[in-house]
């Protein structure tokens, strides 16, 4: 974590959810920067620091929606976990799907957690803040190699 500030990548195409998540992190206890990409291709570009994200920093935590344009969440998860440089980054699947198969599939692809977005916005914000507390303050994470 450079400069004691956490870099979080949110991969989400739904502006309503981006708005809610951003709000939740803004009110959070830990200093952080929330980067947002709207599809799977951009998310991978960000992680590999390609194209417009050449200057991007390696994220400390990735929040990944499954249902994404161009390249869906499962494919992104698969590629990240197949890469030895990136597989240590915790990936939290955050989706509106409560399907049992989606959940099983995500863990098969080595997701670090699977969460269903609560319908109630208050609960949604609480969920994000719980995530933040756990992954950014409680858990110890390794430094990104690419810094």
């Amino acid at each position, binding site marked *: 974590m450079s400069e004691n500030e956490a870099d979080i990548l949110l991969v989400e195409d*739904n502006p*309503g*959810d981006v708005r809610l998540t951003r709000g939740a992190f803004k009110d959070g206890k830990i200093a952080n920067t929330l980067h947002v990409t709207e599809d799977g291709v951009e998310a991978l570009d960000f992680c590999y620091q390609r194209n417009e994200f050449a200057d991007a920093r390696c994220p400390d935590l990735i929040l990944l929606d499954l*249902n994404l344009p161009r390249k869906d969440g499962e494919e992104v998860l698969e590629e990240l976990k197949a890469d030895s440089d990136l597989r240590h980054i915790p990936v939290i699947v955050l989706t*509106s799907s409560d399907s049992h198969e989606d959940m099983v599939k995500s863990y098969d692809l080595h997701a670090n957690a699977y969460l269903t977005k609560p*319908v*109630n*916005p*208050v609960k*949604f914000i609480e969920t994000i803040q719980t995530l933040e507390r756990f992954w950014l303050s409680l858990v110890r994470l390794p430094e990104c190699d690419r810094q």
Partner: protein
Amino acid sequence: MAHWRRLGSIIGGRRIIGALGALYVIFAVLRVFIGFNIGEPVSSIFIIILLIAVPGFVLIYGAYWLSRGDINTEFHADIAGWCLVGFGTMAGLLILFHLQPEGGISEPLTGIPILTALSSVAGLGIGIYDGRAKSRTRQLKRRANQQDAVAELGQIALETDDLDDLMYEAARKVADALDNDYCKVLDLDPENEELLLRQGVGWKEGITGEATVSSVEAASQAAYTLANNHPIIVEDLETETRFSGPELLTSHDVHSGISTIIGPFNEPWGILGTHDTVRKEFTEEDVNFVQSVANILAEAIEQAEKEQQLRERQAQLDVATEAASIGIWTWDIQEDVVTADEYLAELYGMDPVTVTEGASIEVFYDQVHEDEAEETKSKIKRAVEDTGELKAEYRLKDGASTWVEIRGEVEYDGGEPIRMHGAVANITERKEREQRLEELIGQLKESNERLEKFAYAASHDLQEPLRMVSSYLQLIDSRYDLDEEGEEFLEFAVDGADRMRSMIDGLLQYSRVETQGDPLEPVDLECILDDVRDNLQVTIEENSATIDTAPLPRVQGDPDQLRQVFQNLLDNAIEYSDDQPTVHVTAERNGTDWIVSIEDDGIGINPEEQEQIFEVFQRGQSRSDGDGTGIGLALCERIIERHGGDIWVESEPGEGSTFSFTLPSSGRQ
């Protein structure tokens, strides 16, 4: 001798002998009477009586004996001849002796009768001996003739296939052998109770094949024979009392004859009869002879009938195989020769001569399409070596458009395969139909899967924007201070979003009944109902409902889905009822199925709505609280259908409703 015989045959041999004997007896009586008158001694009278009367009696007895003896009547004249020769010779010798110069019979009235009587008896003895010998020769000859006739007829029966020809020959030979004028073969027609003169000899021109005789007992000799099941002999029709002489016989001046049955007694074919115009005796041998000929005819007739049946069956088979597009084949496995009929040749597009005369099985293998050739060969091999039965389908090499099915059976002899025979049918049309059907089923399956995928994807993707609507409506509600009207509007929006969510959930479940269901397993419905009761505890308490359950069976089912069915139906039963409803759950056996019924005393369903309620988004009578998505019953129907059952409702508005569904029994209780 010939002279005497002629005399004998005119007057009658026995009469001559009897008359001669009577003359001697009368002479003896006169001689005794005279002797007493002239005072001859008793001893000489006794000797005279002994030597004249006794030979006389012997001659009379001889005449009588001949009528009962085994000598043919024909030879009676000869015997009489011998008798007269004996008499004449002695008489001649005595006359010669008497006329010679030195001689002279001292008592010609005593000596001549004594000597001629004795010589007549000697003549009778020689005659009887001679007659016997001749009779025996005649009999032997006759029997030999009969045997020849039987043998010849047997041969003809084997050679000819013309029954009428054989019958005519038989009639001719019987008449000849028995020296009769007539012989006839009568064909029985049981329906019309008459016998037709089928063939015969001796009868008037033009009646063969036309004349009939009644087959009713007592009306004719033939009918009497049929009724008595054994050969019947008539010596003289004029004195016959057992039956009357039919017109056919009387018009031909028939007096005697033999009738025998042709064919088995229980199912006679007809009568073989032979007759003569004179009174005649027949021996047992004669009867046996006629019966032997009748038996030859019976066998030939049976054989001909069998052949006729075989020809008819063959003709029927030909028609049937042609109509059914079936080719028949036989494979001599030992010699490797396959013979088949013309239809098979036509089907296979082969030379009919090759096919009907036979060829190696390889020639026929060559006609099989290469894609199925190996499989067909191995199936035939397996049939020959193992199963004994063949069934295979393959295309022919004619551009692969003709499909045939072959079936066959192997014949074994002591475990060794000898022959295989069977049929080949053209099944192209059936195959095409099957293929079209399979394509259609495939298309339907695909279309069904696409629909399910669509329903799933649609409902899945709808959830995301809906969640946005709900979330931000709640945010507006919590963060902004709205006036009373604003609050009211917001409430409608939230309620709409909530209902839409339930509908989407329902649709998701509905679309996943087939694809996401668990395999069917034995399920105890009692346990299912207990779970559902727990789930509905709040609803039950709020409505003070009573659920009354009869013992429930084990069925074959998907527990989660059955739970869903019970939950939806019980929930509906409580929801669509007034306060404190009572719901009855019962089960009854119906063959291998169970019928489960859930009966409420609620508001009921209008008859016109009863069909629709199982359709998606169709809701029963709306209630003020407007709850329900209209998908519960559709989901129930789909689940029951997946279990191979039916669901239906019986309802009387205002009285209540009974929902019933069938489930397969689990096979054990």
